[in-house]
């Protein structure tokens, strides 16, 4: 067994971690080599922000080499691939044939297995739900040697536990997913500048009927009269046009972690101001844009997490019920007042489509995702304060982005935890799970 260096997206430094990297899916289905007393955890492409993708006391099963396609039916749009294939690989293959991912998270550099294990959502949650709805079936290998096909009709309990199950139910070797058809690889995007959360809620309510994709960027450094200003983006796949896949190769790269002093209240405020004014020039304009910059703008900059310097950063993403707009406002005030808000505050209204996953994070409400440079205790306290308010109003936080959630919070956010716990693979665990399972 090799010792390699692994890290999650929010940690700036990697840690030595024992890992196995199977070359073939049959290596796994012939038996997961579980040493007695050592826990296992599948690892995709390390794009989880917190500690749900790390297993410092045990062994990682790295899916990087399991990156093969198995079958693609370009008439029905059904794709079967190994779990280590990335969403970028899939788009490169299927877009020229007129197909697209049914759900796109903020980066195309996640693996298909990771997308299932986190039941990822995207800008179309209000009308299409999470990726879990489009998973036709997958193969799950358990440490006792069982090789199980899971779907809505086979091994239904494990199907529901594995979607959003954070890799704890076994190793996903291959996934069959239903794609959606498109007539163009471009997007029709409409831009609206807004001022205040009420204005956001009204825009969102209005746009969600006519647009498949809606999301807003929020300036979380602006205070006073400019508090809660933002840019609302609504989009649809263009009804006609050419079909070509984007390169999915980053043009820029941050070579090393940047000095931490570079990011301060002033530079962030200046950046947000600039971004707001640049975008608001487009107010009420509609334009056509390639799918790549629309869905995955940050993929253009390799290792963008190094912007946060040697101490890394936290991301905090939560959802609160729709009737809690004042709570959202108070949370945002806390963030603005703390001066710790950063570039990426993304606000989105989730719809009421329920995912098949037991531990799925998305549920109806307003969802806000934020980055915080790691400033030690101060940052942790802010996130814990936010967590407290989210708990009080019946919301939930997203495990894929978390490294602070308490066992109590986890139990409240995910009421099916008991049932889920009975279905996990007894030889699997993660740093996240060690913490929240108490």
């Amino acid at each position, binding site marked *: 067994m*090799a*010792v*390699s260096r692994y890290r999650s997206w929010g940690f700036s430094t990697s840690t030595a971690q024992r890992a196995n*990297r199977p*070359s*073939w*899916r*049959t290596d796994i289905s012939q038996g997961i080599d579980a040493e007695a007393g050592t826990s296992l955890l599948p690892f995709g492409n390390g794009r989880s922000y917190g500690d749900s993708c790390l297993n410092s006391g045990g062994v990682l099963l790295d899916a990087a*080499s399991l990156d*093969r*396609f*198995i*079958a*693609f039916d370009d008439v029905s749009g059904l794709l079967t691939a190994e779990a280590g294939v990335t969403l970028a690989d899939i788009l490169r*293959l299927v877009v020229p044939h007129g197909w697209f991912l049914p759900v796109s998270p903020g980066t195309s550099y996640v693996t298909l297995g990771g997308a299932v294990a986190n039941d990822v959502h995207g800008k179309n949650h209000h009308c299409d739900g999470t990726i879990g709805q489009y998973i036709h079936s997958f193969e799950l290998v358990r440490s006792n040697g069982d090789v199980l096909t899971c779907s809505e009709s086979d091994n239904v309990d494990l199907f529901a536990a594995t979607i959003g199950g954070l890799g704890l139910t076994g190793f996903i070797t291959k996934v069959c997913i239903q794609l959606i058809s498109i007539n163009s690889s471009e997007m029709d995007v409409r831009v609206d500048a807004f001022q205040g959360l009420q204005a956001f809620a009204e825009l969102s309510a209005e746009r969600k009927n006519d647009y498949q994709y809606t999301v807003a960027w929020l300036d979380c450094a602006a205070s006073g009269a400019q508090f809660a200003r933002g840019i609302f983006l609504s989009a649809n796949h263009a009804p006609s046009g050419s079909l070509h896949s984007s390169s999915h190769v980053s043009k820029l790269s941050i070579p090393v972690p940047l000095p931490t002093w570079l990011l301060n209240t002033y530079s962030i405020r200046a950046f947000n101001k600039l971004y707001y004014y640049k975008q608001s020039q487009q107010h009420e304009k509609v334009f056509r844009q390639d799918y790549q910059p629309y869905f995955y703008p940050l993929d253009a900059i390799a290792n963008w997490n190094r912007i946060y310097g040697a101490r890394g950063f936290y991301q905090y993403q939560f959802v609160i019920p729709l009737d809690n707009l004042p709570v959202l406002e108070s949370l945002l005030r806390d963030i603005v007042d703390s001066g710790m808000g950063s570039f990426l505050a993304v606000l989105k209204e989730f719809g009421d489509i329920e995912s098949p996953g037991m531990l799925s994070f998305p549920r109806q409400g307003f969802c806000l995702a934020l980055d915080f440079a790691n400033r030690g205790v101060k940052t942790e306290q802010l996130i814990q304060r936010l967590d407290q308010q989210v708990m009080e109003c019946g919301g939930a936080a997203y495990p894929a982005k978390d490294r602070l959630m308490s066992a109590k919070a986890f139990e409240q956010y995910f009421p099916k935890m008991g049932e889920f716990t009975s279905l996990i693979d007894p030889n699997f665990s993660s740093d996240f799970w060690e913490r929240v399972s108490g």
Partner: protein
Amino acid sequence: MADQQQMALLGATSALAQAVARRLADEGHSLTLVARNEEKLGQFADDLRVRGASVTCITADFDALDTHDSLVEQIADCDEVFCFYGTLPDQSACEQNWTDAHNALQTNFISVVSLLNRLANRFEQRGHGNLVVVSSVAGDRGRKSNYIYGTAKGALSIYCAGLRNRLASSGVHVLTVKPGFIDTPMTAHLEKKPAPLWVGPDRVAKDIVKAAAARKNVLYTPWFWQLILLIIQHIPEPIFKKLSL
């Protein structure tokens, strides 16, 4: 872009071969994949087919020299043949057991020569073709940590140089590839130090495909290995023999 050609890859299920195959398929070439394990070969062939490539699979045991005539018969019509297969033997096991050393020399040198000898004659007859042979920087100078492997690869490099010289006038080309440290399942048990010297297979594959198309003679990949080996080769033996490299 080059015309569409038929490319044969020997040892097609190795990580490096898979990376090269994907790049060749991307360029529109048809592929003949040869490897020992039918199941793995099938898994990789499915991947290439989904990506739109035309793929033929041949199962073969390269150590079985008596099957080489028929194997060469099946791939002799290919425009280019890429030879990837090989093993990375455990040096101390090779020192203790002659069988281990013999197997390492057999797979990494004798068997490759057996195939190239036959292929060279066929290619020479028809007057065109490209033989791409993966050797190693380990063959440039004997070191105590891996000299059995190094011997096989060094001998292979010499063989390729001779073959290239012989075939130059007949329009057949030979490329000797000398990769450094590649992070693959074959090297999974090794500690990846010094880290900057280790690269993924796709980085090396990119260089190989480019060098093959450019009819380059010897390729060190990544490029800095040429510099490193230049230094290593010029260390005087009285000093070198005392080093732990």
